[in-house]
């Protein structure tokens, strides 16, 4: 089992004929994802190099293919429009890779698209190993298994997955939720799904400094998943306070958002926090051993 995505999920790609869209469509198809077509206005009727149909609108694509999932590769000014187009066409699951989407665009989109799950923006997507991949994650580091992984950072996700795979620990679904201030799907949203997924037996939560998603996740775990083996990690523990590093998600502000606050919250919820990514497999193995 997996969450959000499996072998049968029908996926389209918005911006499929662009450089990024085209490159990553090829990789998704090769990974085994059930990509059924893509959208580029004005190129309706053409075929991609993989032989996938291109449509002028998402509506046309959904009508022709029955797609439910979309992967969005469009420039930042057009990301909200692409999400709304997907929503109005009946898409229920959208991954927005685009980096640099205005925060007010996302505020409005997340407040007005009830019933559509959005992953991102500014995220690498998700992989249900051995089944399907939506986004830009390098498929070869994943291996099927029963550990769910959630991360705010893209490359850090790959890093952790690589470590898990090398340690022989397979994954059910790995999700990069994105590092922007307003994202469609939070740690808590993913935890709720993992809780209900019978074949996910453990979870890794890779947070970072800034915001309060990790604190919210810790509260959820303590209340709803106290028995599940979960390991945490907080990136940026050595970042000096008051400085903003990289994306806006990493701004430390107030009492919330500091590494201390996040680590304390995880520990209070009974979640061990790895000092470095390479400690995660060991901590997870320990937690699994105790539980089993």
């Amino acid at each position, binding site marked *: 089992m997996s969450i959000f995505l499996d072998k049968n999920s029908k996926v389209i790609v918005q911006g499929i004929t662009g450089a990024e869209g085209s490159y990553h469509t090829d990789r998704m198809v090769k990974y085994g994802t059930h990509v059924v077509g893509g959208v580029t206005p004005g190129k309706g009727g053409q075929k991609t190099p993989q032989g996938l149909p291109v449509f002028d609108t998402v509506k046309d694509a959904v009508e022709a293919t029955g797609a439910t999932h979309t992967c969005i590769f469009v420039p930042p000014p057009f990301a909200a429009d692409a999400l709304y187009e997907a929503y109005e066409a009946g898409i229920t699951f959208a991954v927005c890779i685009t980096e640099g989407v205005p925060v007010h665009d996302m*505020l409005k989109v997340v407040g007005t698209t009830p019933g559509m799950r959005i992953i991102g923006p500014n995220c690498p997507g998700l992989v249900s190993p051995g089944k399907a991949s939506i986004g830009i994650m390098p498929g070869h580091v994943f291996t099927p298994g029963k550990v769910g992984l959630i991360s705010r950072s893209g*490359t850090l996700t790959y890093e952790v997955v690589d470590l898990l795979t090398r340690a022989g620990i397979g994954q059910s679904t790995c999700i990069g939720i994105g590092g922007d201030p307003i994202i469609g799907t939070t740690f808590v949203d993913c935890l709720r799904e993992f809780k209900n997924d019978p074949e996910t037996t453990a979870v890794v939560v890779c947070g970072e400094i800034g915001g309060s998603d990790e604190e919210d996740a810790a509260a959820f775990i303590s209340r709803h998943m106290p028995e599940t083996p979960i390991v945490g990690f907080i990136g940026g523990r050595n*970042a000096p306070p008051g400085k903003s*590093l990289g994306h806006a998600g990493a701004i430390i502000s107030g009492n919330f958002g500091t590494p201390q606050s996040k680590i304390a919250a995880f520990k209070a919820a009974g979640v061990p926090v790895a000092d470095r990514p*390479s400690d995660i497999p060991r901590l997870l193995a320990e937690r699994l051993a105790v539980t089993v």
Partner: protein
Amino acid sequence: MNLMEYQGKELFKRAGIPVPRSGHAVDAHQVADYIEKTVGEWVVKAQVLMGGRGKAGKIKFANTADEGRSVATDILATPMPPNRQNPKGEPINSLLVEEKLPIAKEAYCAITIDRTAKKPVIMVSRFGGMDIEEVAEKHPDSIAKFYVDTAIGYSPFIGRELAFESELDAGYRKQLPSIVGALYDLFFRYGAKLVEINPLVLTTDGKVYASDAKVELDDDALFRNPEFAEWQKHLPLDEDEQLASKAGLGIRNFRRFDGNVGTMANGAGLAMATMDAVTNAGGKIANFLDVGGGANAERVRNCYELVVNNTGAKAFFINIFGGITRGDEVAKGIVQAMEETSSRKIPLVIRLTGTNEEEGRRILAKAGMTPVETMDEGAKRAVELAK
């Protein structure tokens, strides 16, 4: 992008938020000129992004042109003193000469984004003119909040509710709903992450004015208002931000520290984890550098030079896990940097995995470079080389 008070007030004016009469001046002479021409009682305020102007003596009163010249000269004589957030202080490049208001009450009003609720939140407090963090600590119940449904937007009842809930002086009531409405318009129209009026002044003759203006615009939304690019030129970038900008990076993608191990990674999360790894290996980091997603060879080369020429790095750990970034492009950039740069050369530790990893390794191998396998290993090696 944080705006100066005078820039924020320009936006306030456009949005219809009442602000005191004022003039912007770049030297003491202009201050004197303005007061000469415009009879009244005035406040002269340093235009800086840092807080704490009052305590630093950078806000002064003047009733005559001579007084204006004198206090302006005083204010401009020294930069803003450093504090925790701004260890280098801040130079003062301009002043705002503003009508002195007959203050009866001071309140606080702001709109920002709540990440957890995923909504704009409007905040009003009857305690104005002091740090809102201090108010939050001493009088937490005095801050009334409203989370706006973005499908609906602002409606005047919100301002009324906030006025009653925060127990604002009755004198504010009639004017607050339209002022908050205008502030919300501004917040939305210009893509702001924060708009703040502190203090929101009620005058002895019953009028309400925004006596200060704090506006943080979303850098990602600046393209919608091209004029802000012009404004940005008047805003101070610190040295790190200037260097990042010159190298073609986002201003937040580069930051220097005191150590001797240079770092570079793709993605802020991995870049932070890389810094953590160096620290864990007993090293001291020379910098944070996120080369960004999908970096090409040229960007990699620029980043190499940025670190080597501007930090105290004695060794350089490049940690790339390819996703949208391709290993072959990164490898090309590294090779180019080593072959073509006129910069000094320091020991390099490369970790390169993920998308197009094999091709990247081939390119490095041709140039005689062998990448390490893991982040921890790379960090350890770099720390050793920097000794």
